């Protein structure tokens, strides 16, 4: 496919995704997948997802990722269907959150093997109006570095309960990344870095006193 055609396609995808459900329900998007049969199947999968109220942008990205990685049409089809399924699971687990960022983060966490129950626990750790995308992303990253999901969840939910900001929680992820890259055992890195972030936070009593009403502990 020429660059010109690809750019046109992307533009049409972007436009389609902006108008989300109606656009996809009425006219399927055109993806640059060489295998015509797989392309139609992927487009239908995306349209079905849109009809179920799922965000389509992560699915388009998943399909495009396959195109760039020169995956077969069949494989792209499987990947998009799996991604749609995970988005739906994430929406159920993270309810009432419906933001694209949170659902995408939740779906990515499920993809890496984070148990669904843990997403629920993270959602419950902060008030519903507060996005939990970053804590989920950090959980995903810690698990990807080899830390058992339970240990990672424990540290993250403690930080959330203690009033840590998303950036502070994110810094835990990047610090552990660097430590693991430098050769430190993942579990040891998590323990050390979690203590470091914790030391920057107010005491538990002060955090409880300043917590917004309705905030639940994990």
């Amino acid at each position, binding site marked *: 496919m020429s660059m010109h055609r690809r750019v046109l396609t992307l533009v049409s995808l972007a436009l389609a995704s902006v108008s989300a459900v109606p656009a996809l329900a009425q006219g399927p998007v055109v993806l640059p997948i060489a295998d015509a049969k797989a392309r139609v199947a992927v487009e239908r999968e995306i349209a079905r997802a849109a009809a179920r109220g799922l965000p389509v942008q992560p699915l388009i990205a998943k399909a495009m990722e396959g195109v760039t990685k020169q995956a077969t049409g069949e494989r792209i089809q499987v990947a998009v269907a799996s991604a749609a399924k995970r988005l739906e699971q994430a929406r159920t687990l993270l309810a009432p959150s419906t933001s694209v960022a949170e659902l995408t983060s939740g779906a990515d966490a499920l993809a890496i*093997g984070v*148990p*669904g*129950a843990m997403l629920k626990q993270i959602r419950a750790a902060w008030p519903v109006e507060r996005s939990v995308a970053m804590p989920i992303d950090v959980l995903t990253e810690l698990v990807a570095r080899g830390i*058992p*999901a*339970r240990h990672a969840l424990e540290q993250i939910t403690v930080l959330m309960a203690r009033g840590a900001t998303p950036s502070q929680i994110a810094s835990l992820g990047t610090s552990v990344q660097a430590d693991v890259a430098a050769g430190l055992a993942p579990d040891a890195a998590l323990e050390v870095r979690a203590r470091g972030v914790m030391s920057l936070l107010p005491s538990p009593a002060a955090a409880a006193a300043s917590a917004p009403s309705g905030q639940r502990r994990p």
Partner: protein
Amino acid sequence: MTDTRPGTSIDPTLPLRAKAGDRQAFAQLVDVMYPRSLRFALHMVGNREDAEEAVQDTFVRVYHNLGRFRDDARFEPWLFRILANRCRSLMEKRRRHAVVIQYGEVPERGGPPAAETERDWTEEVYRILATLPVEQKEAFLLRHVEDMAYEDIAAVTGVGLSALRMRVKRACDVLRARLSEVIRDE
């Protein structure tokens, strides 16, 4: 891809076609046997991560050793033999770590009393299973969960029939004794 029923029949030509280089046939073998393999591995090693590793490794080994698979042999015991060995190796590797049972998503909490009781039962079953000696657990799972004939289990484990029957009996005895208490509490 979700059929974990025991005794899911394998087309006997599949292993032979896979051996001859038919990738689609190998994919079908994976499709049929992956769920059962994952279930067995999960019950053996007690956590999803290790179970997945054991299953993935097993199928890679199976693929690379298809040339050694005898045309007159049965595929299922052959696969489970490799899988059981992988599970044992992983368990040995993890032996020094504390036993943590992670059976994926925990069933919903906060359900009606009946559901809560069922959850207690399930957790107790997992707990007892985790305490069984590995050879008893292996024999019990192959016999009662995977519905394998003792002759096939012998092929998997390399252990004689009478010894296998004894292992299964002992596992059943332990489960009966300890679960009877849970039933009384219900």
